[in-house]
């Protein structure tokens, strides 16, 4: 029995790193008193796995962790039970009782949506449309003192202009080809887009179904809000 929790993170707690977020949820789960499963041995641990780490400083509306259970809690109230143990800035949005054959979040993640906020996009719309319509865009960038080269168009799946200052981009988030969200803004800037990106946040995570269509990690079982 596995429950998948979707959570958001905002405000000052975005500066808390992935490891501390894991520790935070471990404690919250223990406090909540739900009957979670533990590993055997001298130092039992919760069977808890996070779909994808999030960089320090980034907000999210759609991150996930899977928790293996011994017995099911009151699913109608599970979101409230968890939120009673959460702090300002961390909120559980819903819980999915996963279908039996679901692969765990970490190995099944294929894509992520990010929403980018700009001062004003209206003057750059043409350029942006042209950027995303390319078949190939070889981009060289530096991360952690290493030079990387990637064809971004292979890892960008979809984009959507949401308004004068918002844009959504779906990128590869698989373990093999994860594209970091800030690489996209860096590439846009290089391409000549002058609108300044103020911030971005993760919106949701996806896996794929048998028809190779993207499915939100949330929708892999019965959802409780």
């Amino acid at each position, binding site marked *: 029995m596995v429950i998948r929790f979707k959570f958001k993170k*905002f*405000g*000052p*707690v975005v*500066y*808390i*790193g992935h490891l*501390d977020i894991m520790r*935070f949820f*471990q*404690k*919250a*789960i*223990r*406090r909540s*008193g739900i009957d979670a499963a*533990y590993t055997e*041995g*001298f*130092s*039992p*641990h919760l069977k808890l796995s996070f779909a994808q780490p999030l960089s*320090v*400083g980034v907000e999210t509306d759609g991150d996930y962790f899977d928790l293996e259970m011994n017995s099911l809690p009151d699913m109608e109230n599970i979101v409230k039970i968890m939120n009673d*143990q959460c*702090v*300002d*800035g961390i909120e559980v949005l819903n819980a999915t009782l996963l279908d039996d054959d679901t692969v765990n979040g970490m190995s099944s993640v294929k894509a992520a949506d990010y929403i980018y906020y700009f001062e004003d996009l209206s003057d750059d719309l043409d350029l942006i449309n042209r950027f995303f319509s390319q078949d190939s865009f070889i981009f060289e960038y530096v991360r952690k003192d290493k030079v990387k080269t990637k064809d971004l168009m292979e890892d960008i799946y979809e984009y959507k202009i949401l308004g004068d200052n918002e844009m959504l981009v779906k990128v590869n988030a698989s373990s093999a080809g994860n594209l970091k969200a800030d690489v996209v803004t860096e590439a846009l800037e290089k391409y000549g887009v002058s609108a300044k990106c103020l*911030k971005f946040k993760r919106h949701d995570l996806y896996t794929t179904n048998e028809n190779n269509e993207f499915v939100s990690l949330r929708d892999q079982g019965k959802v409780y809000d």
Partner: protein
Amino acid sequence: MRKTALSHEILMTVDKPARYIGGEFNSVNKNKEDIDIRFCMCFPDVYEIGMSHLGIQILYAMFNSFEDTWCERVYSPWPDLDKIMRDKNIPLFALESQDPIKDFDFLGITLQYEMCYTNILQVLELSQIPIWAKDRSEEDPIVIGGGPCSYNPEPIAEFFDMFYIGEGEVSYRALLDLYKDCKKKGYSREEFLYEATKIDGIYVPSLIDVRYNEDHTIKEFIPVKEGVNVKVKIKATQDRITLEIMRGCPRGCRFCQAGQLYRPIRTRDVEVLKEFARSMIENSGYEEINLSSLSSSDYPELKELILYLIDYCNEKKVNISLPSLRIDAFSLDVMGKVQDIKKSSLTFAPEAGSQRMRNVINKGLTEEQILEGSRLAFLGGWNKVKLYFMLGLPFETDEDVVAIAELCEKVAKEYYETLPKEQRKQRVSITASTSFFIPKPFTPFQWASQFSLEDFRDKAYLTRTSIMAQLNQRSIKYNWHDTDVSVLEGVFARGDRRLAKVIYDAYKNGAIYDAWNDYFKYDIWLKSFEDNDIDMKFYTVRKRELDEIFPWDFIDIGVTKEYLKREWLRAAEGKVTENCMIKCNGCGANKYGAGKFCFR
């Protein structure tokens, strides 16, 4: 939503920004309009170190249980943020409200080790509070020091408005009430400080003057104002709110300061402890629980408590981290139950190698006990033993140092004699660690000369070569502590007011985070002593006369100087003094009337 004092850009530049944002579960937020007193509690080291400190957690909970007080926390900013704050002129802020500390009523700083002194100046300066107490105005917070190093506050006395000496639970309420009262009456800062000296345990350095003899020893303490008592008295508490199972220690080891400061010994009722353990586990979600005390094996109901905790924690999937226990059949059995013996090692703290030396320091652990404990452990499947020693104890000779190596060898030999060849899965592994002994105030060894840097090095060298000379030397690993820091710690431990300027200059020349090896810069300190024409040896190796007045003598901790002197003389003769749960040795702490053992 909560705000942050630092901008997004700054938080993304510094290492581990989570150190500066607060908002932890169980941290306390109050409405500024509803409270009278804002108190900021500071541990002058980095967040991760300070957060694990039990004392602050106790005081934080106590202060916040007062309706009129909001207690927040602050830690030392790491050097990366320190630089940014100076460049951009950002005042140091408290974690909870993210408000500047300079707007608070109180800044309380805990003094856990001498090497944090420069960090105190950093906290003051970044807070934009004048470093010297005499330069502060009505607008500045009252800066209070407390904790173990406040038992000799003199080297840092002039940076503080007052010290709270003693256990925090006793007099803080009275102090806060006085503060409110003084504010209502429109009293000045100076008037409040004067009134505060009437509370037990409060020491206001600016109101006591120290006169020195020509040789720099202390002549006398003089009250600056009429009515100020030059003897600061401390009271002891009964009430606590953590899984501290016992306060105090009955053993009377002569090198140990905590053993004298926290007298008399006070034990908690075992049923109360069980109840606390349950509610702590349920309310915190922690994965591990540990018991705190100076000498857990002396807690009378230890067996009952541990067996209960093993059952309860097993059910709740919580690990128990055992306190250091006397090694016997019971503790080995318990250890086997709660930890993987293949990975864990057994620890003994003989502190000295020879029996003669252990008698001098009154460490009631015999060679037979160590070897018998080792034998039981080897039979139980352990093959790793750690032994802790001190080098440079008073009256130590070369033979005593060599005895450290010999004791390690005996433990190794015990392994081979206990286990027949076919039962030995691995070679026995013995780790011997030595630290350098530093005489502390309020111990029988406060009269002792500390050994010099050269002596320390010779002693470490002798230990190493003697270990190398043992038959089983390949099974013995030897570690020792840095010598430079030990000398400086020794200076501050028994220092006086003349050192304030040395600390100030060292800080101004870049000394910070001295407790961290990577940051400790001995050269800066040497220069600072030289510039101020102060000889470190005056505080360390100098021989002190029996009737010398010490810088900390104006504090009355309950245990009398007469008793300490008696113990010092007995140490010189190598005479042991009994565990005070068995026989009262008349130390003076029974005047507090606390703790059931003190009445026997």
